[in-house]
């Protein structure tokens, strides 16, 4: 393992800027990645993640800003690029060749000494679990295997910084897990990683620090904990109800005048003169009121699916809250407690969801 203290930062990007046809897609983006750190770039489609990476790898000329990789300015060219293991978003492999041949080619491109090449290839294939398919052609591989080989190519020359651009897009859950576990292993071994994704779970699981990008800007940066405090760190409790007194489900995704249900309260309530919607919203309002009055909660409101309640410590408040609701004649059907997450942070910062 490298001695991290003595190493220069794996990457420093300052004031990066890129404009396509008058449209600024990367706007004044600065961040740095410490040696051995896993840094996540989280942002929705079109945020500019790939554009940032392309500039770092020298694949795309930048309009402004500076980049250094492992202490070497990217303008130096080959030496700086040699520090990077670049894994593009798409599967960038030679499909007519075997895994072995693909890796052998890249070994030449990265000037790996011939005497070491065979050993390196074996180790790398081992790491991504493709050893027994080494001499099969890539076009005979499954999608997940191709993804793994795609990553292997980036690892072969033992880079200082591994850049993974959405490595789990279009991957089955099993391969996705393998890939993430692999990144965790590399992290433990001291490799610095730049990981872009629009899945917040991946960023949360893998990254030491996360930069949130939206519309070309880095709008927030920090550890998961630091980012989450941006929203205030309340848990969010989502409540849904078996039925409202109006006889309709509180879950609005159900058709409003659905066929008779096996619902004990159903016939009794049918006679009331309220319209179903009116009854439902009044019922939910009442539930929210009960929640607000329960000690330990901060606020509560009606949502499309039911009600939501914010509390400093959701799981502690929950038993009391449910008891109060039942007492008030609001039988709860489902409960989910959301601890504050990056999705909420993104929503808080941009007013929209990560994957809209």
């Amino acid at each position, binding site marked *: 393992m490298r001695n991290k203290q003595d190493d220069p930062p794996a990457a420093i990007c300052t004031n990066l800027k890129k404009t396509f046809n008058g449209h600024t897609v990367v706007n004044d983006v600065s961040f740095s990645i410490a040696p051995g750190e896993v840094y996540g770039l989280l942002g929705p489609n079109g945020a500019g993640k790939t554009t940032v990476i392309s500039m770092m790898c020298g*694949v795309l000329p930048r309009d402004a800003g500076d980049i250094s990789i492992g202490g070497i300015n990217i303008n130096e060219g080959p030496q700086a690029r040699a520090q990077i293991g*670049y894994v*593009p978003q798409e*599967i*960038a492999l030679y499909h007519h060749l075997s895994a072995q041949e693909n890796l052998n080619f890249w070994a*030449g491109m990265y*000037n790996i000494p011939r005497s070491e090449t065979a050993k390196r290839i074996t180790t790398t294939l081992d790491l991504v679990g493709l050893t027994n398919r080494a001499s099969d052609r890539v076009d005979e591989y499954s999608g997940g295997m191709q993804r793994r080989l795609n990553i292997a190519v980036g690892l072969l020359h033992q880079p200082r910084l591994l850049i993974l651009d959405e490595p789990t897009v279009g991957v089955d859950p099993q391969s996705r897990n393998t890939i993430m576990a692999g990144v965790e292993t590399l992290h433990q071994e001291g490799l610095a990683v730049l990981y872009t994704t629009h899945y917040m779970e991946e960023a949360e699981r893998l990254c030491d620090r996360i930069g949130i990008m939206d519309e070309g800007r880095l709008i927030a940066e920090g550890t998961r904990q630091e980012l989450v405090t941006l929203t205030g760190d309340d848990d969010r409790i989502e409540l849904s109800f078996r039925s409202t007194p109006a006889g309709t489900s509180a879950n609005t995704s159900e058709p409003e005048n659905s066929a008779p249900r096996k619902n004990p309260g159903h016939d009794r309530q049918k006679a009331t003169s309220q319209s179903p919607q009116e009854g439902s919203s009044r019922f939910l309002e009442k539930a929210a009121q009960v929640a607000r009055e329960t000690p330990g909660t901060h606020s509560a409101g009606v949502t499309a699916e039911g009600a939501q309640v914010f509390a400093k410590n959701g799981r502690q408040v929950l038993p009391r809250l449910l008891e109060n609701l039942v007492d008030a004649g609001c039988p709860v059907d489902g409960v989910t407690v959301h601890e504050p997450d990056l999705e909420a942070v993104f929503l808080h910062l941009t007013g929209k969801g990560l994957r809209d």
Partner: protein
Amino acid sequence: MRRLLCVCRNDLRQRIRDRSALLLAFAAPFLVSAIIGMALSGAEEFSTTLAVADLDRSPVSSEFLSLLQSEGLSNVLDRVRVYETATDVEQAIADKEEHVGIVVPAGFAAALFHPKEKIEINIIGNTDKTLSTSLATALSEGFAHNARTLTIGLATAQAVSHGKPVEQARLFAALEEGLDSVALRSDFVDGQVKPVEFGAVSMAVLFLFLSSMFGATTILTERQEGTLKRLVASPARPREILGGKLLALYLLGVLQMGIFILMTSLFFAANWGDPLTVAVLTISAAGASLGVSAVILAFSRTEEQARGIGSMIVFTLAIAGGQLTFGAVPDLLQSLASFLPNGQLQEGYLLLMEEGAGGNMKSVIVPLLATSGTAIAGTVTLATRWRKVLLA
């Protein structure tokens, strides 16, 4: 240098794995020239007997007759017998004494001088002998066409130079001299180059330039698949990447031509001429194809664009350069072809074939210059635009 060779070797390996590329480069030209060879070499074994009657009895028509009886046509016209009247000819055909007949009607020569009047030569054919009939038709049409062009040209020239009416007798004299050089100047029947050899040369040149289009598209495919990006992100320098790729294309071009020349020599008994000169010309030819690849590449961003631009360039070259017309080209195209690298190349190979063992560099100096010039111009064009090709 290690990287350049790495790129080159990798590209070669991929092409060799790619069946469609292999087919295009190696199997297709051989198959097509085999087909053309068979079609044309039919003409070698093929021979026909001809009955001819000259009712015009003019200097022009007798020139036509002597042309039909000339040495040059003896390999396709087994026997030419002259009959007195059209009826005699018809009778001979009907009796199957002759395969096909030509009757030059009275007034044929006179009609030549009146552009609005139709020139007629009657072909008397036989339904079982369509090939003979088409041959007779082609010979007659060729003669009539050339004769008219020549007469009108001469008449105009003389009228202009003397400012007085043209004398027929003098014209005929001029015509007689001129006819030798125009009538049926055809690569099939006239020269020493065999039809199958002619077919082989045009196919070699055609497919060499066709591959230049596919060469450009393979590099753009890499762009689309993302491996080009990876190459650019590696420590390799742009010139190593492009250099390696161009070298691979070049070597494939040489290999493609080499194998083709070898195969046609072995299987079609084509005699390409002095081996050393043929080799030098081929090495330069592959360069020209590379130059065309480089130009297509320099101006395309995607595979589709390269196919569009490429097929436009390649087919224009092929038509204007004479690979699709088999020598039967109008004069304008003929002279255009000599300005094109592929036209020059075809000319060069044919020349070496004609000269046989006596051919040398001197005889193909212009084709050599044209092809290597194309190589240099194309590569320089690409070098000035490498960013457009390599960067995102």
